């Protein structure tokens, strides 16, 4: 009897994502705005995550950085409120607002108290729908953006990523600096920012996740009030692009004792591809999983060459690629790269063992529930699931999809997906014994 109950209890726990997803409702407001909602009344606040598809990829070629600067100015004044007045107003309501621009989206995050949610969202609406873009704020925030661009010019990881993006994506928006350049940002005008706002923040770009003390019936009118005044359509999203770096090594000389290396190769595996899950699990075993993954075991645990080494499958709105990153002293980075190349090839030719797969499944299925432990975290998951074009019941089926992966699936996809000879490495530092191939 005790055993029977114990087994039942364990099943309850492992099925948690199913429980979480049963609580996800799709809400469509009277005005036609859709959101995914989890009603969670135990703490009296509401977490909202709003994404506008497109992000900095919508910058036009002659206005690089416009979307990023525009996003930084949303909270910097509206109507007759200047930036300080706006900030004081949000402080008086104890509301937390955040604005951020990435390659594929402009993100707005908000935490508002249940007790004054309407007032707080009315204030947020002004930032989203009618930002002032006054000259004093433009001048000040432009200075902050330029200082961050200048810092990135001396940051080895940022240099590596920028270099790889340029090599891999060329003239496509993904090949350009997401925040713009010092020169392009210096040249931006108020009219450019108004145009960027119009291009990026439209109802057809909206993706919304809401978690907290709010019902579906309450949320609809809230969304119409918050976002209904945005234009119906914005700029077209960027076209699909292939990761097109030639195989080889590019060394960027930078005087620092530790080199940073990133690497990547093309793939056609994205979330909609039938081989997505075998590839995802394969990557977890190769280098996605930290301790216990092959790269961490070989590069860090056995040889002490690094503090951190990871591989990843990266899917974006308009491309996919597989890559990774490592940092190691200038004298040892070459050895680290050799080990990584070897592990890439070993996985491609041999796949994984049954034991490795079993361990990966236990971790991936068991830890999935840990992602759902906070209103703000869940709201972010609701948005990324929609950004990734998942069905609303994805969470319920996800662990089954992990469990369905076989050793044979991984052997097949590893051979098809991993191309050790196609890897492009970018190394920033003064690596010993590593030279550019170009």
């Amino acid at each position, binding site marked *: 009897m*005790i*055993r029977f*109950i*114990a087994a039942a*209890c*364990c099943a*309850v726990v492992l099925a*948690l994502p199913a429980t*979480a997803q049963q609580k996800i409702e799709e809400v469509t407001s009277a005005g036609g705005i859709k959101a995914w909602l989890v009603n*969670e009344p*135990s*703490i009296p*606040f509401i977490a909202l995550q709003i994404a506008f598809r497109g992000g900095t990829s919508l910058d036009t070629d002659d206005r690089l950085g416009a979307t990023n600067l525009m996003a930084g100015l949303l909270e910097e004044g509206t109507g007759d409120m200047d*930036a*300080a007045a706006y*900030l004081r107003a949000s*402080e*008086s*309501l*104890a509301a937390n607002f955040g604005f951020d621009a990435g390659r594929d989206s402009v993100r707005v995050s908000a*935490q508002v*108290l249940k007790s004054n949610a309407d007032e707080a969202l009315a204030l947020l609406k002004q930032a989203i729908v009618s930002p002032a873009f006054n000259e004093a704020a433009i001048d*000040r925030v432009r*200075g*902050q953006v330029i*200082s961050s661009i200048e*810092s990135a*010019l*001396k940051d*080895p990881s940022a*240099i590596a990523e920028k270099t790889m993006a340029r090599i891999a994506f060329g003239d496509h928006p993904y090949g350009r600096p997401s925040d713009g350049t010092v020169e392009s940002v210096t040249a931006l005008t108020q009219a450019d920012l108004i145009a960027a706002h119009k291009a990026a923040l439209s109802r057809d770009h909206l993706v919304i996740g809401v978690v907290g003390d709010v019902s579906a019936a309450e949320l609809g009118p809230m969304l119409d009030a918050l976002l209904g005044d945005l234009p119906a359509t914005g700029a077209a999203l960027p076209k699909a692009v292939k990761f097109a770096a030639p195989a080889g090594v590019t060394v960027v000389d*930078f*005087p*620092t*004792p*530790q080199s940073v290396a990133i690497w990547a190769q093309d793939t056609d595996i994205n979330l909609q591809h039938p081989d997505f899950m075998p590839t995802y699990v394969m990557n977890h075993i190769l280098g996605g999983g930290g*301790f*216990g993954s092959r790269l961490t075991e070989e590069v*860090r645990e*056995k040889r*002490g*060459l*690094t*503090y951190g080494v990871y591989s990843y499958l990266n899917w974006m709105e308009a491309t996919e690629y597989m890559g990774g990153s490592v*940092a190691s*002293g200038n004298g040892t980075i070459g050895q680290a790269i050799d080990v990584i190349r070897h592990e890439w090839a070993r996985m491609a030719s041999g796949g994984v063992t049954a034991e490795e797969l079993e*361990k990966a499944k*236990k*971790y991936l*299925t*068991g*830890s*999935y*529930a*840990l992602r*759902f*432990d*906070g*209103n*703000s975290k869940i709201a972010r998951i609701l948005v990324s699931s929609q950004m990734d074009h998942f069905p609303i019941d994805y969470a319920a089926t996800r662990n089954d999809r992990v469990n369905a992966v076989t050793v044979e699936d991984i052997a097949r996809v590893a051979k098809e997906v991993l191309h050790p000879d196609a890897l492009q490495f970018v190394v920033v530092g003064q690596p010993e014994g590593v030279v550019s191939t170009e």
Partner: protein
Amino acid sequence: MIFRALSIVCSVVALPMMVQAETGKVSTFSLDNGLKGIVIEDHRAPIVTNMVWYNVGAADEPPGMSGVAHFLEHLMFKGTKTLKPGEFSKIVKDNGGVDNAFTSFDYTGYFQRVAVDRLPLMMQLEADRMRNLVLTENEVLTERNVVLEERNSRTESDPGSLFQEQRRAVMFMNHPYRTPVIGWRHEIEQLNLDDAIAFYKTYYAPNNATLVVAGDVTPEQVKTLAEEYFGALKPSENIPPRIRPQEPPHLSPIRMTFSDPRQSQPYIVRSYLAPKRVSGDQSEAAALTMLSYLLGGSGISSVLGQKLQLDQKLAVYTDAWYDSMSYDPETFGMYAMPRPGVTLEQLETAMDKVLADFLKEGIDTEHLARLKTQIAAEDIYELDDQSGVARTYGQAITAGLTVADVQSWSQTLQAVTPDDIMAAAAKVLNMKNSVTGLMLAPTEERSE
């Protein structure tokens, strides 16, 4: 034995519906061997954060062995009498958990986040490595290279971190807070197995640890499990009293400059020695906390931001902070980055004028009221972050505070008056207690 563990599993899982209203409730217990326990209830999901906090950190290291506390933290993931090296994290992963650890001046902490029915196993693992660590020469030497690469990543590659190390080394003339947590490179290079084991045997024991469990559990369940897994561990009888060398009076303001070709932006950092939160008497620390929020807590709506960024247009960023939760007194500080064309000297003069005016003119009471509204709301928002709440309690205990101190903190902040803040400001913003660091502008050439 197995049956007992299973029945605990069941009761843990079955309970949530009944105790929904208790999310946020905190309770404590202690075991006969000295282990303290703190339980923070959060019944929103069947998940738990399990943490063990040791009252030992970098400031407790023997002279010449900087970095040994952090090095030992890494080595705690090697084997025990019954576990093979690396098996700890693999077992956590096999059970769908995530784990990690952290070291600071006053504490070393270890945690796992797992489904709540795996809590007994996590406690068993933590209890095991509290007393049964086994290390070999080879794994110690390999891990030392990992730590050196960590120092490369965190410190040697970051001019800001290098400058911070240099500033702390003069901010504290005598207290071990002057030594970086990760250790000086030349001393890390000499750490060995014997150093790590000696440190471990001295400090890792139930009577020097606090178990913090946050999640879908009740206090009774956690205490029962703690008894089962930690109850048999022997306390250590030679834990040294936590008496570190204290600071003598500082009689001379210190100024220092730093330059590094990899640094792109100049800035000023000013720090002052400052009192800490004292158990049972947190009012002065509360006043200093409010002072840091007023001066720099929120960019342009703070005093430094309003004056230096908006009005005088001299700064790109401003900030202020106060390290209140530490075993010994720490620092109060502020930061400003000049706009292009503004020199660090101009900015420093302007910053000093802002401080002088603030001390003369006093506090905008409307500003103070806004801060108190936000502090009240933070009591609600913070409940969303289970691990964050657990971390707050662990840090407080290792800083010599109590659960009651943590729970009354928000009220203590609400009770702070403008006079309290001005008195604390007048005492702490004393140049004789200060270090002013200038990160110099980059030289002319650009990296591209």
